[in-house]
């Protein structure tokens, strides 16, 4: 090769099952499949397995719920590959070739079956001032606390929707925050109905009560939401409303978010059917694409307990014709039902559609205001004319918001599904190299 060109040869790993995502669903799937003797690779963008919910301070011990699973995963024989983002998946004669970027290098995984456990992300609805420093996501706040950030003495309001607000409120109180208010946008009657419904799942009620105890000195209100955040260089105050009156609070931190939305980009790339925003699966977690299964939040928001069961179902049946155990199927059915009721209760209310004004920024990567995209007939037109959703985050934040605000259909998904180094996209092996069996890796050498 001429000049200074460095060639990047991909590392190649062959497996029976590739699990994409190492949250509870992915871990349970990997464990169940590996314990059956299958060669399993489980990969995640995070630096340690656990996903969003089981994330813990680097170096610190995992939480009591997570620890047994992490131990089991380590003993299962599944190979975990962290710090890895999947860029492309393409079917070939023997299964799938997954192209990933791992520590800035190409990694190709050849697998007969795929289990998608890609989780969910938070839905943000833009309002004036939401891009000010000091405004953060509810899940993002949880992650910050877990990584050891201090909130001592900070005046905090949590305003948004969904059951995730309770544990975050509890953690913030524990982290020394001066938690002023937890404001749920859903109506009181709906939330009360949800709470009564919890009687049917006493463990959840108990959990909710335990969280509430930890921030008893702050108030919890329903039917209330934030309409604006104010400040010059950073957040100074917020305006709240209950639909009739508005009032202001001086705050240092606002945690906001309107629940979770499934991450379905890789599924859409593969051609899996998406129903109501989630990957459509049958009760054995099979998608409509042969040899592609999906588990956890990506198949519908249902919480970690449901993800674990779905993972076990997928891991115990992948690559075989065996039916899952009746016990797993019954628990799955019960939890799926509860999850559906929860989604109805916490669905964002109509009024939130009028939160952004014409000059409210909706796409922070490309600095696009709501007014610039309002007239567009479809997402594609708005993207082309205004570049909304075209930045490095690939519309992960603004497109779901615009979907809620303007009822846009999602645009097509093409590789790369995540930003990837050109060297990763240009790495070619198919037909040239033989992967290493069993699960040892061959790292090509960069040369000049």
């Amino acid at each position: 090769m001429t000049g200074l060109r460095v060639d990047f040869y991909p590392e190649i790993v062959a497996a029976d099952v590739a699990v994409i995502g190492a949250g509870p669903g992915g871990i349970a799937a990997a464990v169940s499949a590996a314990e059956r003797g299958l060669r399993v690779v489980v990969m995640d963008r995070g630096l340690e397995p656990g996903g969003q919910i089981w994330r813990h301070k680097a170096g610190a011990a995992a939480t009591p719920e997570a620890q047994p699973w992490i131990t089991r995963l380590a003993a299962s024989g599944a190979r975990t590959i962290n710090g890895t983002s999947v860029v492309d998946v393409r079917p070939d004669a023997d299964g799938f070739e997954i192209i990933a970027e791992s520590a800035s290098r190409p990694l190709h995984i050849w697998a007969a079956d795929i289990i998608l456990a890609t989780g969910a992300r938070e839905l943000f609805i833009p309002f004036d001032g939401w891009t000010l420093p000091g405004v953060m996501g509810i899940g993002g706040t949880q992650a910050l606390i877990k990584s050891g950030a201090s909130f001592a003495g900070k005046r905090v309001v949590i305003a948004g929707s969904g059951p995730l607000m309770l544990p975050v409120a509890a953690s913030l109180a524990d982290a020394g925050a001066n938690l002023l208010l937890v404001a749920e946008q859903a109506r009181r009657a709906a939330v009360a109905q949800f709470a009564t419904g919890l009687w049917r799942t006493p463990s959840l009620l108990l959990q909710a009560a335990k969280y509430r105890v930890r921030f008893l000195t702050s108030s919890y209100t329903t039917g209330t939401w934030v309409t604006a955040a104010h400040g010059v260089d950073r957040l100074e105050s917020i305006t709240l409303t209950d639909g009739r009156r508005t009032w202001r609070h001086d705050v240092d931190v606002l945690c906001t978010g309107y629940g979770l939305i499934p991450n379905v980009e890789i599924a859409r790339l593969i051609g899996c059917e998406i129903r109501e925003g989630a990957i459509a699966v049958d009760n054995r977690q099979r998608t409509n694409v042969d040899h592609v299964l999906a588990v956890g939040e990506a198949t519908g928001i249902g919480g970690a307990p449901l993800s674990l069961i779905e993972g076990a179902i997928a891991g115990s049946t992948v690559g075989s014709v065996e039916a899952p155990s009746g016990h797993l199927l019954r628990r799955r059915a019960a939890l799926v039902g509860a999850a559906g009721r929860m989604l109805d209760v916490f669905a964002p209310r109509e009024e939130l559609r009028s939160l952004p004004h014409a000059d409210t920024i909706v796409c922070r990567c490309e600095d696009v205001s709501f007014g610039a995209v309002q007239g567009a007939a479809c997402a594609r037109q708005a993207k082309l004319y205004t570049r909304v959703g075209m930045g490095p985050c690939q519309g992960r934040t603004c497109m779901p918001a615009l979907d809620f605000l303007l009822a846009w259909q999602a645009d097509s998904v093409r590789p790369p599904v995540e930003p990837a180094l050109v060297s990763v996209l240009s790495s070619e092996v198919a037909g040239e190299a033989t992967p290493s069996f069993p699960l040892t890796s061959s790292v090509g050498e960069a040369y000049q």
Partner: protein
Amino acid sequence: MSQRPDAVVIGAGIVGASCAEALARAGRRVLILDSSFAGGGTTAAGMGHLVAMDDSPAQLALTAYSGKLWTELVPDLPGNIEYEPCGTLWVAEDEEQLVAVREKQRTYAEFGIEAETLSPTQLAEAEPHLRPGLSGALRVPGDGVIYPPNAALALVQRAIANGAQLREGTRVDAIGPREVLVGRERISCDCVINACGAEAAQLTTGLPIVPRKGHLVITDRYPGFCHHQLVELGYLTSAHTMNAESVAFNVQPRATGQLLIGSSRELVGWDGTVNRAIVRRMLDRALDFMPGLALTSAIRTWTGFRPATPDKLPLIGAWEDTPGLWIAAGHEGLGITTSLGTGQLIADLIVGATPAIDPAPFAPARVHATAGVS
């Protein structure tokens, strides 16, 4: 449109938009119809390189004329067309290509296009990210870059300011003598302009236009990574030869600091999916010239269909089979550049003015003359 339009332009891609703009400016009542939205077809996929190209004298005449029109128009267009007068560097890999570079310089000079030959040292100074060992380049400072969908939209808006009307989401089902059919609706007019790009042959049978697929990759922002549109001299061969597939090094600095990496050409019908193998070849070719691209982050890929003709020239002029029908289509990989020249030619021919360049090489009648070749 309450009044009968003088002209119906089918297709609000950059070519149709330019025809509509020129006709409206000439005082014609124009109705623009597009099945999707302005600039949403191939125009949305284009790289937006405004480039003088010399595959044939006619091509050079049209690209040079269009380049001049762009330079005149740009100051009146909105900022979101992102015009960058970055110029082009035609990069020579070896001595043989350097000879071709010098020849190209002479050809351009005959058309009054400024161009200078860069030595290897000058090239390395101009573009430090190019690999060492290249033989030189031709710098064409008058070339530039625009953002095509917004340029098409801006042209449509100028037409509207001159009384034109735009109907989007409106698919034309058939063209008749001095009329178009949209479902049950019959719109009569004096002339119809088929500016449907790669799809033009679906409305006018006999047009030898086929879709020639291209891929592009866009990166995150790396301001200053390169300063000119960089094209390998071999690009012309890639564009000229109707091979089943070819790739060429073609990198563009966007106003945003992003880099657009091209280019590929394939004849695969209307399959718009990303072909991973050709993307790899295309990136590989780019890495041969700019090794440092390896560590830039690619954020998106897309494809588009160039409207290709057998003789590499667009079809611009009357279509004798159907009274009142004019064709403005088949611009292959140069339609962003040549849109303005095309629009002005069409308007001049329709109103009976003398065109600034000879329209004969573009006359659709040549297709009839070579009937059987497609």
